[in-house]
């Protein structure tokens, strides 16, 4: 099924001053890139779409996923995945348990989904490993696979490549966009790296301070 994420007439305010306004539609497999300097509200936008916004902000507009208004749903019910600049693999769980955390509880063949995901990321046999023993690139791939295993209907990327070194950055960037397109996910990317926007290949919105 092809998913559509619509950011409909969204305005976010903090203490009466407008932080940002945006109105956009992202179709399946498309990547919308939002660029802007620090403090321009990029991450605030992602938090709003994910349902994690601090109540100190006031908002207008709606987040529509496949035409359904999810603005007032809690984050766990939105089916919107989120990837940070750090992989944030839970340090108390093994690699496999981290992936299992993403798989819905009532899904059939949960273990098989995990081993398939590991294989797809080129990490066969890594299931019982301590995440702390993985390399930076391996962690980034596990983090992406974990999000995909939660079967999101849309994906949010919060400067996901900014902490990787140059060679790794290109490799992971390609890996992520390839998976996103394959899964047909509407994707919102915030970044201040023009190369990210270029690789994403979709529309680009520039936020100002």
């Amino acid at each position, binding site marked *: 099924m092809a998913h559509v994420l619509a950011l409909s007439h969204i305005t976010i305010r903090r203490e009466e001053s407008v932080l940002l306004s945006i109105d956009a539609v992202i179709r399946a497999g498309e990547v919308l890139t939002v660029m802007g300097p620090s403090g321009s509200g990029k991450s605030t936008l992602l938090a709003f779409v994910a349902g994690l916004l601090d109540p100190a902000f006031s908002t207008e507009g709606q987040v529509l996923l496949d035409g359904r208004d999810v603005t007032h749903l809690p984050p*766990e019910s939105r089916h919107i995945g989120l990837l940070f600049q750090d992989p944030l693999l839970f340090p108390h769980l093994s690699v496999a348990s981290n992936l299992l955390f*993403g798989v819905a509880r009532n899904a059939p063949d949960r273990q098989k989904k995990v081993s398939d995901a590991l294989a797809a990321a080129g990490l066969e046999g890594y299931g019982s490993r*301590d995440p702390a023993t993985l390399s930076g690139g391996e962690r980034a791939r596990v983090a992406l696979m974990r999000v995909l295993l939660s079967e999101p209907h849309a994906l949010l990327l919060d400067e996901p490549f900014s902490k990787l070194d140059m060679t790794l950055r290109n490799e992971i960037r390609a890996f992520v966009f390839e998976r996103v397109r394959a899964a047909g996910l509407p994707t919102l990317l915030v970044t201040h790296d023009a190369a990210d926007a270029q690789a994403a290949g979709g529309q680009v919105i520039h936020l100002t301070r």
Partner: protein
Amino acid sequence: MLRLTANAVIVLLAGPVVAGLLFVFLPAFGYAPALGQHGFDLSAFANLLETPGLTRSLVLSLTSGLITPLVALAIVLLFLAGAQESHLGRTLSRAVSPLLAVPHAAMAFGLAFLIAPSGMIVRALSHWLTGFDEPPDLLIVNDRWGVSMMAGLVIKEVPFLLLMSLAALPQIQARERLAVARTLGYRPVTAWLKAVAPALYPLIRLPVYAVIAYASSVVDVALILGPTNPPPLGVAILRWANDPDLERILVASAGALAQLGVTALALVIWWIAERLITRLVTSWIDRGARSAGDGVFRWIGLAGMTAVVALSALGFLSLGLWSIAGFWRFPDVLPGALTLKTWSTSIESMGEPLLNATMIALLATGAAIAATLAALEHEVRRGYRATPFALTILYLPMLVPAVSFLLGLAVAAAFVGIRPGFWPVVAGHVLFVLPYTYLSLSEAYRRMDPRWFAVGRTLGAGRSAVFWRIRLPMLLTPLLATAAVGLAVSAGQYLPTQVLGAGRVPTITTEVVALASGGDRRFIGVWALVQALLPATGFILAIAVPRLVWANRRQMREAF
């Protein structure tokens, strides 16, 4: 539900303290119907003022409340500044946490035996140096200005402040700060004092205030090491309250209010000094000297910490020796014979107090941690930090002298029909444990990166799933450390156990204090060792369990 819990926590803490103070307030102003006093007057205060030696009692409590935290803080800061990275420094740091498990009274007895004219040090010297066959008649223990008492308090408070500091250092990126300052040419100790200490102090301010409150109202350590004639105010209050002339309870109540005033005064003086020192330190930092007595400061810190560890360890060991001593006469350094008689007599009567102490400590700590988690989770979910008012209330039992409100609390409890017994004792312990569990857990809780929970939520886990599956397991190490602190605090409580249990809930600590009134070192040795057992077990588990559970989780081992 959570909102209710957070408010309930505040009522739970403030209610008993306020009720206790009220029932101290009334008799202080002459209202005591049971004694046939119905009027309101100031005669109790007049009687208090006429008490011989009152001025000295007040001065003793005030100086103890200021000098103890000053010395303890200086030792801790200079030690951290100069010696922490050295081999000896690391050894000492490791030796300190077990010391936290030794209860105040046991530590005081150990120190008393070391430094008394008939104590270990004089005994060790007598054979080859002094040739004494009778102890010299010197006033060392119970000296008039409370020097030994303050030494006993410093020995007990240094480990507390050191552990609180060690827990706070990672929050302020101490290593990075130090590195930056040193690359700018500052010598290590100066670098630490200028770049790390000013950021550390605000984080350990509350523990320091707790030390001020405790040292200015101390009872148990003062009974063993403090001046006797006149004693510090806390001991004087207890004496009045226990006077066979029941009307002295009015004076005791007035004294309890005076104690409140002395503690408040000590806190205010300290607070003003803080402001002053902040200015001085700021200009000291601005002047930019790269080295300021590095060698001397380093030496003081190391010597102070070594003295603390050595005195407490030796004192505690000699108590252990007394517990198996046969006839042991001055000036013999070792007992003439060893015997297990004291142990075998004691063990028969140890079962019930040990069971009570364990149950009370586990229940009170469990309840306190549950309440702390509820309050913190509420804060995090609502996205607000506890208001200064709420924090003041939370730390009230730590800052209000226990002698000031516990006597009144017993009356208040009887007034609302609560019969003394096991459960009121547990509730009373919660009151004293909660501030410490909150203090030790709140920073770890708030320091957790909120993105962990964002990741969990967007992966489909609800709030409570995030709490149980991410937050709690990731907090295992600080949770266990908190539990160990809670057990230690509960295991050391004397007044609340005795007052709220009407003495019918014997614990190891009530037995130790009763025995301490008899002063028999052999029995005190046995019971003090047992008293340290419960908190020591807690601390050992708090260190061992995370190592086992996280054997294969490197980041969890390094996190705290």
